[in-house]
Each structure stands twice: as structure tokens, then as C-alpha cells.
């Protein structure tokens, strides 16, 4: 069974005001087939965790480890991590002018699998996956993320999740900016991916809204670069009612430092 393990992770970024410590010792174990929700207020370090796992060069790891089935992810390039089975659905996917979706998907699939996808089945697979996400067939001829609406960008991320079949996926605020219909479509896609491949999921979100459609096995509350509390799905319900205020009060108190 596959396992993604984060141990005592400490991460900083360079800002104009100097080095800023963002993650201050994060521990997390995600097993294959599990859904973990990472929740927390803005600035608590949720997205930093996502991008550090994926290997974005902006984030400096000062200590701790991230391993995938015992392999040290921190020693791998961004693309090697993806080939090892990791996927990051981005909050703000970038435009790639002149690169058509269909070309991009085939190139990525070839890179992940190490061989070209079968000409016979690949086209059908893409068409089917797009249909499931209610994406028009003209979509594949458009350039990657160019002129996409917010909802189209998120659906395109989930399309890749379904086609690339990673072992673990980190979804960085995939729910933000989606209306309820788009949210349902995206959630269906995530649930379908889990059903089909049994992947492990790290669902990063500010709101509990998406958790109505994707049921987490575990909920972790991030505050000030640490996991302040963890529990089952009931913790999400509590946050829905109470918000983050009680955690923020704790973080501000010096006795917690």
C-alpha cells in the first residue's frame, strides 16, 4: 500500500522583508485511498504545503522530510515527483499560449507513463473523461488555460487528474470561485478518480462547502504553519458552525509558542 508521509516539515520563503518562515513543523501521513482535508484560515500555510510537496522552487525546505513509499521526494525534480505518482491541482493554473489541450494531455500522459498512450484507446478515454466533466469537445483544440473561465480551469485540472491517474493528489483550493453546479461536477470527478484508482487525496480548502460532496476521512486544521487540531469529518462540521476564531485566539497567545 502506498503512503505519502510528511515529517516535521519546516518551510520558508524569501520576501522583500527577508526570509519568512511559513511551515513550522508539519506532520502528516496519507495512505492510499484516504481523503484528508486540510483546512485553515488564509495565511496559515495550506498552499505552501501543497506547493512544497509538488516542488515549487519558491519554497525552501529548512528541515523535515517528505517521502512517497519511503522515497525522498525532496531530492526529486518537480517532474520526477509527478512521475513518481504525485499530482497537484492548482488554484491558479497558468496559460500556455500556442499549446493545445490535446497536445498537452498526450505529452503529459507520455511523460508519466514513459510510453505513448495507445492511439486506439487514448482518444476515446479523453472524450469520455471530458464528457463526464461536461466539457465541450471543442475544448481540446483550445490552448492550455488560455481564455478559460474559472470553472473551465478547474475542470481542466480534474480532467488531468482523471487521465494521469496519480497515486496521490493534492487539490489546492479547487473549490474556490466555483458556483454550486461547477462544484458538484468537479467533486464528482474527484470521487470518480478515487473510485477508479484508489488514490490518496489531500484536499486543501478554506471552506467546508466542498466537503458536502467529498467526504473526508480525516480533517486537519492548519493555524500559523502547524496542525492545530485533527479529527474526523465531524471536525469539519464544527468549523462550519464556529469558524476559525478559537484557533486564531490560541495562535495569538504567547503560551502556545
Amino acid at each position, binding site marked *: 500500500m502506498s503512503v505519502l508521509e510528511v515529517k516535521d516539515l519546516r518551510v520558508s520563503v524569501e520576501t522583500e522583508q527577508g526570509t519568512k518562515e511559513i511551515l513550522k513543523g508539519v506532520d502528516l501521513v496519507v495512505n492510499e485511498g484516504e481523503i484528508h482535508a486540510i483546512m485553515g484560515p488564509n495565511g496559515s500555510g495550506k498552499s505552501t504545503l501543497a506547493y512544497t510537496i*509538488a*516542488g*515549487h*522552487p519558491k519554497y525552501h525546505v529548512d528541515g523535515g522530510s517528505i517521502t512517497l513509499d519511503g522515497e525522498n521526494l525532496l531530492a526529486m*525534480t*518537480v*517532474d520526477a*515527483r*509527478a*512521475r513518481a505518482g504525485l*499530482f*497537484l491541482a*492548482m488554484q491558479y*493554473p*497558468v*496559460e*500556455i*499560449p*500556442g*499549446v493545445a489541450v490535446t497536445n*498537452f494531455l498526450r*505529452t*503529459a500522459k507520455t*511523460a*508519466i507513463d514513459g510510453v505513448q498512450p495507445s492511439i486506439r484507446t487514448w482518444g476515446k478515454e479523453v472524450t469520455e473523461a471530458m464528457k463526464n466533466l461536461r466539457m465541450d469537445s471543442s475544448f481540446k483544440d483550445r*490552448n492550455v488555460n488560455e481564455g478559460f473561465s474559472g470553472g473551465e480551469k478547474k475542470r481542466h485540472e480534474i480532467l*488531468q487528474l482523471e487521465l*494521469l491517474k496519480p497515486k496521490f493528489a493534492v487539490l489546492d483550493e479547487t473549490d474556490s470561485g466555483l458556483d454550486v453546479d461547477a462544484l458538484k461536477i468537479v467533486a464528482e470527478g474527484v470521487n470518480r478518480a478515487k473510485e477508479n484508482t484508489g488514490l490518496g487525496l489531500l484536499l486543501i480548502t478554506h471552506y467546508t462547502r466542498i466537503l458536502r460532496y467529498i467526504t473526508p476521512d480525516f480533517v486537519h486544521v492548519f493555524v500559523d504553519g502547524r496542525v492545530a487540531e485533527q479529527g474526523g469529518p465531524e471536525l469539519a462540521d464544527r468549523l462550519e458552525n464556529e469558524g476559525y476564531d478559537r484557533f486564531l485566539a490560541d495562535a495569538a497567545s504567547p503560551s502556545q509558542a
Partner: protein
Amino acid sequence: MSAPVTLVTSPANSDRSDSPDHSRLGSKQHSDGGWGLVPVQVRSARFSSFEVDDFETVTGQELEWKHTPVAKLTPLTAGELDGSPLPIEAQEVDGARVEWIDRDDSRIGRAGKPEERASANAWSSFEKALSITVTGEEPVEVLVNRAGLGDAPRAAHTVIIAEHHSRGTVVLQNSGRALLSENVEIVLEEGAQLTVVTVQEWADDAIHLASHFSEVGRDARLKHVVVSLGGSVVRINPSTHLSSEGGDVELFGVYFADTGQHLEQQIFVNHDAPNTKSRVSYKGALQGVGAHTVWVGDVLIRPTAAGTDSYEQNRNLLLTDGTRADSVPNLEIETGDIAGAGHASASGRFDDEQLFYLQARGISEEDARRLVVRGFLSEIVQKIGSPALEARLQDAIEAELLVGEVGR
């Protein structure tokens, strides 16, 4: 009026003390207002003549030569040129005529008049002109293959005429060795729709200077595409005169400069009649020490050109250290009554977020860079409208990328 933009990546041109340090710069947007490096000289007042001796010896100080390595061009700007017909291949097709015509033919001189010495030298020297006339309303494609012109200095003259309401594409395909100065006149009669593509895939040591002059008639549409990939010094200057109401031009260009290559284009769009439209878009990639590109885009909107709609842009992608991209958009507007006039210029390195996105999908850094550059340049190639030519040019760009091992 003038807004020069220069992006230099170290170590080339480190002797230029006035160059700001862009070495840590992700992207450089051009700023209006200029740096006061040259006296303002309006395009509408530029000198022109058919006679080479009317021009002073080229020194490199002149506005139109200041970015160009003029020392390499002496045979073309100051020497004697062989004006005999070029050894070309062109297929005769239904709906178009290809023939050699004499200097005194009335078709010559309808669109152009040289504005610099190499152009005037070619004009003074050519013995016969190649005339291509598009006649039919069904679209035709004429391919003129110019391969291996040799290393003796030559002059050439070409006249492309699209008769009224005709439609066609003319491709000038250049390869092999060359030391050539030429003028190309392009005339679009009323309602004609013409695409002219000039493709420079010259040998490494080739030198090619070209002035393209077009005269765009009433409701006529010109699409002009410059593709420069090979050659030592290649300078293609397309100039268009929108002299009749409703004229419409699209000027596209794509270039890829490698180590030591100088690729230049000076564009001039002259709006001289009401309700004319122009779109200019040039994109280039540079890699390797000494790769240098120049783009100058002059747009002039005369008092006669009420309702003009104009936009020009240039984008450059600097793939390695040691490259230099000059980008100078100029806009002269002499009437307040226009529909729109805009310009944009940006030269920069790779967008790291694009690389991260592609790498996060398992694509290696090298392949990701290649994908981004190919995408960047293919936006222009896709606009040619000739599938076979587009496919061939995509392959040629791909070959450039493989040769250079982008970003290494």
C-alpha cells in the same frame, strides 16, 4: 514618440554602460517616453530616392542602420551588384502569371521607392524584374524557390500584383548561400486578397537585405508574413501604404536567432485613407551568445486617415544568456479621429510558472521549455493559412530548438 526597448542578457554587450541591469529581470515591459538616445525623426519626413548616389555612405549612425552590423554589409551598401535574373524555380499555376520583365515596364515603381542605400543600390542595379501576377478569384498559391544564390553580391527586384478581386498566396522560399539586396513591390488592386510569405532559411553565412513595399487598394486585404530562421544577417523591412479607403493589412513575423545571428525587421504602416485597418504582430526567440534581433515598428496615421484602427505588438523570448533583443514601437498620429491605435512590446525570459505547471505534469524541464517556445512561436505560424507550409515551418522551428538545446 519613440519608445526604444532593449533587453540585454549578460555577458554580451557588457561594454554598454548605459544598459540597465536586466540580468535578474523576468520580463521587461516597454516604457513610453524614450531614453533620449536618438533625436526624434518622424517617419513621414524620411528621405527616399531611386538613385543609390543620392544616399550618403552608410556609417551605422543613421536611424535606419543604427542596430545593424553595417561593416558586414559593405558589398551591398557600397559595392557593385550583379543585377542579372536570380536562378529561381517557380511553377506556373492557373490564376497566376510568372514572368521576367524589363526595367522600363510600367509595373515597376507602382509601390515603392527606396529609403536607404542598400535598397537604392539594388534598385539601380537590377536588369530584369520577376513579375508575379495573381489574376483569378479562386485562391491560388505561387511558390518561388530561391536556393543557392552564391556568395557574389547580387541585386533583385520582384513585383507581385494582385489584380482586382483576385485571391492568392505568394511564397518566397529562400535557402542556401546568398549575398543579396532586393526590393519587393506588392500591389493590391481593388478588393484583392493577397498573402505574401517570405521564408528565410538561408545557410549560416548568408546576408540578405530586403525592402518590401506594398500599395493596398480600396477594400483590399494584405497578409504579409516574414519567417526568418537561417542566415548571418537577415533584414526584412516591410512597408505598407494604405492609400485607399477600407484597406486592411496584417503583418506577421516570426524569427529565431541562434549564436551570432542578426535578424532584423523594420515595419512601416502608413495609414493614408479613411477607415483603414492594420494589425502587426511579430514574435521572436533568441538563444546563444551574440544572437541579436531587432524589431522596429513605425505606424503613421495621417490626417487623411480618419477612422483608422491600428495595433502593433512585438514579443521576444530570451532563452539563454548573451542574447540581445531590441524592440522599438513608434506611433505617429496626425488626426484625432481614429477608431483605435495601440502598441505593445515585451521581451523576457521564460515564465517560470509555465515551466512549473508543465513539470508538475511529469514533463521534463527540457521538453517543457521546448513546448513553451514552440507554442509561443506557433501562434504566428498558425496565422499563415497554408496548412502544408505551416506544418513545414513548425518542423523547421522544432529543428532550431533541437539544435540549440534550449536553456542549456
